């Protein structure tokens, strides 16, 4: 993975030189450790600004919504699935995109890394499978697999499902992972325990909507929480309104969520918002055999009706 940066720059410069795209969307190095910034490059000379490492957790598909331009876009497995979703939802046309596929071995959860050291991390270096974090008086090397984001740890679509360029050979897909283990744990709880679990989960929510806004699926011109005529949801910290936001947002993502984890990466409060969407992903998988964003040739289960759709859950 350490060679990806050079390859991304090379492809971006070529696409821009050949005039195949108006811009390339990728990441540039952030100003704080373990934080990269979504970035547009518009000239071959700017291509050197692009980088790739284990801190590219945001989903760049979020930056192409409704664009009229021709775009080169750096896409790991999940980003590519959201591009597929965007294409079938008419948010971008396939022929507007040159997808620069990045085989991915997972992104790092910086909260997990910070929890493993005492003191402020001021610099980070990484190899293919480890990251070394240093600060005042300490330096620690951590295996990447120990600090992966939880969605990455259970990801079975690490390679881009759709691409025009590839920055490296496909990586081996993970096998034997239980993608829905976390959901099963919650499903096994009693109703009261479930209630308490979710109450605790969102207890620190400040309703900044970073989860929603980092999500490529959340492109409604006006989100239901922002409607004021009528106002569906209150604006306060009233727990009813906070719950309503999280539950309804998750339902709006049913059958569309690729479990890219951008919501959790963006959340300033470290809330595991995937706990909501993941349950719906599991339902879609079990009821319809559906995982979002794997193919351009099928409509998502919730936007078609079939006479043999399962209906056992209707009581």
């Amino acid at each position, binding site marked *: 993975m350490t060679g990806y940066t050079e390859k991304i720059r090379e492809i971006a410069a070529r696409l821009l030189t050949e005039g195949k795209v108006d811009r390339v969307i990728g990441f540039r190095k952030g100003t704080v450790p373990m934080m990269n910034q979504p970035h547009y490059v518009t000239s071959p000379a700017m291509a050197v600004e692009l980088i790739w490492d284990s801190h590219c957790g945001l989903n760049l598909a979020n930056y192409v919504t409704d664009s009229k331009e021709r775009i080169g876009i750096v896409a790991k497995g999940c980003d590519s699935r959201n591009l597929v979703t965007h294409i079938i939802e008419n948010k971008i046309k396939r022929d507007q995109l040159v997808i620069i596929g990045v085989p991915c071995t997972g992104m790092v959860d910086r909260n997990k890394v910070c929890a493993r050291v005492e003191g402020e991390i001021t610099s980070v270096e990484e190899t293919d499978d480890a990251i070394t974090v240093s600060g005042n008086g300490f330096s620690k090397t951590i295996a990447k697999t120990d600090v992966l984001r939880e969605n990455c740890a259970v990801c079975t679509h690490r390679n881009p499902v759709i691409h025009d360029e590839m920055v490296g050979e496909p990586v081996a897909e993970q096998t034997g992972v239980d993608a829905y283990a976390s959901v099963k744990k919650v499903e096994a709880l009693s109703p009261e325990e479930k209630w308490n679990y979710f109450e605790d989960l969102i207890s620190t929510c*400040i309703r900044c909507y970073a989860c929603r806004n980092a999500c490529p699926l959340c492109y409604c011109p006006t989100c239901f929480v922002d409607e004021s005529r009528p106002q569906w949801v209150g604006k306060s910290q009233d727990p009813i309104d906070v719950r309503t936001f999280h539950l309804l947002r998750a339902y709006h993502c049913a059958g569309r969520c690729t479990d890219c984890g951008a919501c959790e990466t*963006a959340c300033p*409060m470290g809330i595991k918002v995937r706990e909501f969407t993941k349950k719906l992903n599991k339902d879609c998988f079990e009821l319809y055999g559906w995982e979002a964003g794997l193919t351009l040739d099928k409509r998502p289960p919730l936007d078609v009706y079939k006479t043999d759709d399962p209906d056992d859950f209707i009581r």
Partner: protein
Amino acid sequence: MKLIKIDKKSLKEGIDKLKRTHSVFGPVREKDEFEFKALGDADMPDFSFSNTRMSPKAIVYPQTQLMFTYSLNDADDDCRILKEVPMDERPRAVIGIRPCDALAFPLVRRNFDTPEYQDTFWVRTYEATTFVGLACNEPCATCFCTSAGTGPFGKEGLDVLLVEDGDDFFAEPLTPKGESLLETAGWTTEAGGGAEEKITSMAAAANEHITSAVSFDNIKKREILELYDAPFWEEEAISCINCGTCTYVCPTCWCFDIQDETFGKSGVRMRNWDSCMSPLFTLHASGHNPRTKKHERVRQRFMHKLKYYVDKYDNGIQCVGCGRCVRLCPVNIDIRSICNKMNNFDPEACKCEVASS
């Protein structure tokens, strides 16, 4: 300078005494992060933090504040009359607030407490509060307080400054309110000779830890429209997802939105923090929105903090250098780079570039 010495062993005793007369707030660890909370009978502030994730502004200015209740039932004598929600006006003590966050209170006061207008909810709570600061012996790499009007040992906005030194704290009372709080807590032992020199040298060492800075001397000289029309806003806003993180974690962002929520025949008028990052912030009742593009909203936030505020109050920037937005912005928009970019902006050079290209 009068200096008190507090043995860490007597901290609990003093705080317990304060709890009899004050609502006491302090940093506590909550799910791997620190936040300021009202301390219960058994709780003690945990000073092992660098700073809390959220700023302590909510102690005086909660995210949701109930202001009035009303009845819409014609049978009620007070139908359609706003009745103020009783406030907790007990004295408050905030123990362990960092100097950057403390400076935010007098800064915000310039907006909430003016000769023409007093925000009674904010002012009454603020006046009931005694701020006991904790000097930063080890500031973070994202801190830039020394160029934002204070420093790791800054005193503005504080009633007492605590300096942690091994098994003790030095406490410097800065106001009569602070002196009286120290007496209430029973912290009255004067520190011996040499304490003042020791604090001075600790402060100098802490200042050296500050590695980042902002400059805004040129911003003040520029015309508003020169900066408003600067060509860099769209580029700076590329990554912005228009969430409210920067505004909500900021100790100096003061904007709010007033909402009435009616349930049947009764209701409540409240205010909630609002964010200029949201399109809804500027949506007019007519349906018109003067700030529909995200770079316009990003520009607004930085122009407010770094230009409009500077021009209006002539008292520095509307930022205390706590670094929360730098650390927590999901897409790494960094106020330090933007402030310096605004400060270095030369509209003349920019015109030449356009002319020659």
